């Protein structure tokens, strides 16, 4: 599903140049559950953002579903992204002014799903995430675990083929963290490809494969049995 070759990303700030990704090459097949690990600042989020087409690589190639997307225009990337990829963040990134229902509904609005269909699909996914009883609450009224459920619901409501999760359990206690990992595992078992950044070896064990980064390069790959 994903094939990156010699991917590079630099950040230039007032004469200091940071190499966030350094000739990184990775391949991920459809249906995989991959964990990405490494020390802080090694380029994990940068990689995830590029995979999610939120950001452009400076050099190298990125083939998504057999299409070279490395130098797609913003508009094309956005189009590809909203139909294929869901995001889960460490800090949930829910919109405070919208209710649970409205937050989950947003991706459907942006992909032009008609209103009646939207209600059905939002309710379906809220049910699955067991957060239906909170549908009219605002994010601030929920616990961290509940907020992350909403965020995952929002990420999957469009039935994406790929879910990118950046430290999804980073702000949660272990019980809630395990719940989230169960949810992701379920989704993976139903066919969704998942790439997850994590600091926790425990969480990484839910995945099929661990890619370890150091200074923007892949150093080790562990295959889980």
């Amino acid at each position, binding site marked *: 599903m994903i094939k990156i070759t010699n991917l590079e990303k630099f950040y230039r700030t007032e004469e200091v140049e940071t190499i966030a990704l350094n000739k990184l090459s990775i391949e991920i097949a459809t249906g995989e559950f991959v964990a990405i690990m490494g020390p802080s600042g090694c380029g994990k989020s940068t990689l995830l953002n590029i995979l999610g087409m*939120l950001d452009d690589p400076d050099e190298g190639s990125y083939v998504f579903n057999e299409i070279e997307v490395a130098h797609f225009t913003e508009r094309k990337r*956005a189009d590809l992204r909203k139909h294929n990829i869901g995001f889960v963040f460490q800090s949930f990134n829910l919109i405070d002014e919208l209710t649970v229902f409205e937050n989950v509904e947003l991706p459907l609005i*942006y992909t032009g799903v008609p209103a009646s269909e939207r209600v059905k699909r939002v309710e379906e996914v809220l049910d699955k995430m067991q957060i239906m009883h909170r549908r009219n609450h605002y994010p601030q009224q929920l616990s961290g675990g509940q907020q992350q459920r909403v965020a995952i619901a929002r990420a999957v409501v469009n039935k994406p083929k790929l879910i990118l999760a950046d430290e999804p359990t980073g702000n949660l206690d272990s019980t809630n963290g395990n719940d989230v990992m169960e949810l992701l595992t379920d989704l993976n078992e139903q066919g969704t490809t998942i790439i997850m950044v994590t600091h926790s070896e425990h969480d990484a064990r839910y995945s099929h494969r661990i890619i370890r980064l150091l200074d923007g390069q892949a150093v080790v790959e562990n295959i889980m049995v």
Partner: protein
Amino acid sequence: MIRNYLKTAYRSLLKNKGFTVLNVLGLSIGLATCLLIVFYVVDELSYDRYNINADRIVRITEEARLNGNAGSYAGTEAPLLNALKGNFPEIEKSTKLIPASALFISPQKFRFKKGSTNLQEHNVVFANSDMFDVFTLPMVDGSPLASLTEPHTAVITESTAKKYFNKTNVVGQTLTLNDTSVYKITGVIKDIPAQSHFNYDFFLSWSSLPESHIYGWGVSGQHNYLLLKPGANIKKLEAEILKIEIKHSFSPAAWTTGGNYLKIILTPLLDIHLRSDSQYQLAKGGSIQYVYIFSVIGILILLIACVNFMNLSTARSSNRAKEVGVRKVLGSARKFLVAQFLTESILVTLVSTIIAVFLAWLLLPLFNQMADKHLAFTTQSLSWLVPSLIVIVLVIGFLAGSYPAFFLSAFQPIDVLKGKVATGFKGGFLRSFLVVFQFSISIFLIIGTLVIYNQLNYIHNKSLGFNRSQVLVIKNTGVLGNQAKILKQELKQLPGVVSTTLSSYTPTGDDRNKTGLFPDATIDIKKDVLSEFWPVDEDYMGTMGIKLVAGRNFSAQMPTDSMGIIVNEAFVKRFGAKDPLNKDVYRYSVGLQKFHIIGIMKDFNYESLKEKISPAVLTYALDNGAISVRIHTTDIGRLMSQIQDKWKAISPNQQITYSFMDEDFDATYRSEQRIGTIFISFTTLAISIACLGLFGLAAYAAEQRKKEIGIRKVLGANISTIISMLSMDFIKLVFISILIATPIAWYAMQNWLQNFAYRTSIHWYIVALAGGTAVVIAFITISFQSIKAALNNPVESLRSE
């Protein structure tokens, strides 16, 4: 401590440069505009206050209604003052002025000799030495007691003395009037302040008037003033004077029948300029209506500017919540925080005020030109300006700073640090309210401007019943005497001249002559038709392009035409006769005169379009005051020099005075034109200030919602969705403003239009245009920010954790 506040304030303002610039800019433009308006209003309100006894001086004004003609007149009868003299203890002094225009000899022109040429002067009045008892007109040479007592004496102003003699001590010198009479100067007064309801350069002694020009009862042309004793009972005095008036009037009984009335009003001197709309006043007055309108606009613009300031300060304060939290955790007491915020906003106001004064000073010449004023920064104006500015700085600074100062400083530091108040941007009801307020005012002003221009346009294009284009009026042919007739004939021969006519009464001119006309010889005042009565020649209607409806024009071949008249349709309506053609009409002037209606002409507008057309009558008689020339040429310059040559051939020493009729027409509406220009400037200013504020608010909104925008983009929102989302929040407010402003503006402008007898209506597209303009301007303003925000890379805005 203060130094510490100032230092911190200075740094904080510097750190938020954009915010500071927007605030200072908006506030100083608003304050400068307001200052100019204050200057204007103060000037208008200061009329005639230079008189020490201003509050005790009154003008005797007459209000009358007779046979459907109602009006208020600034002039009253000549014998009136003598009749009052000695009989009323509440009258301390009295005086009279009689302007040349009231002498009823057509047209009274004054030419004074300077060297070998004659200068035409307009500001000439006849007066008595008691003028100095009532008005405060200090003398620089001569003595009031010895002035204007003898026939053929004159008092002139300082600048007139300089103009004719190059010095001011000219008592004893003489001035030659119209080449015939010699006036001895007995006094030189200081120039009369511009803020005066009369402004004359020459005061000629009353006793110089020939006997025949002093009228008796029944002719009102004299301006009579009284200096009252303190506490005089004005109502009682008015009633007493009325009794005298009625006793001496033509037919005392007529005033109590059929809706007729006569009233005497003692108009306070200080009301003459702004509140008196009497006819025949000594100078065109101002209008209290416009003083109110401008005061309101000034206040509104200042409010818009203050609202901006408050809005931007509160918007920014939510960004500063964290700073407050930190300061509080570090132990800062609430009052220090309050002091800190207030110092900042007062500092901004102070800087803005200083810039505003400078701006106002720069703009003053422009404003003077626009408002036809001579306003200036003087030490006297500074004496009230400086204290009021200090008050303004404190009040505005305090108001604008109070929200962040008191509201934010009251937060619990822990809430602030947890970010609970930082999200308060969208819920800002106050902020929305203030934006609606600003835009309602702006839209109101846009509608006002459009209506004014629409009306001016209507006036300009209205068919007037005569043709004012390509008509040259030579206005001082009176100086040629009988040779005016020769000039008329010679001009007619020129190529490019279509026709010429001799009469000082033109539809766009100032010369007017009202007279009473009667259907029978009994001169029954109840049947009086008050009409304009203009002496013209047989070429008049042709040259002016006035249409004949029935009958015929005057003809040189018909000797009886000297008693023939041509009447307009308004006259016919008032006259009442079924078939007025060939009917007789009587006039009582120097004995009874009988006229014969030989023609009926179409109504034409000879007064401002504020008035309905009233009866007008042309009579076949010689009046050599002016020549109107209808021209048809492509080379106006050449024709003009030919006309000048003809003039010079007849009168080498006199300057020709002329103008074009369409210019004269436009001059009638100069005050409306002026209001239009002023309105458009104020509207532009109001909108600019409001947009500055909107610009700032949009920037803060985008800043506050940066993360939300990032999330939405990650979830698939495209750029146009984001832009319209950010813009809609504000555009919504503009739409609310349109709903609020439209009915108010409609009502107000409908009122203004009532001033005109001939007016347009307020079309729906004016409202649509005003609303559309506001929306578009607001949208463009916001777009700068929303486009920037929408183009932002979401990774950047979500990266912060």
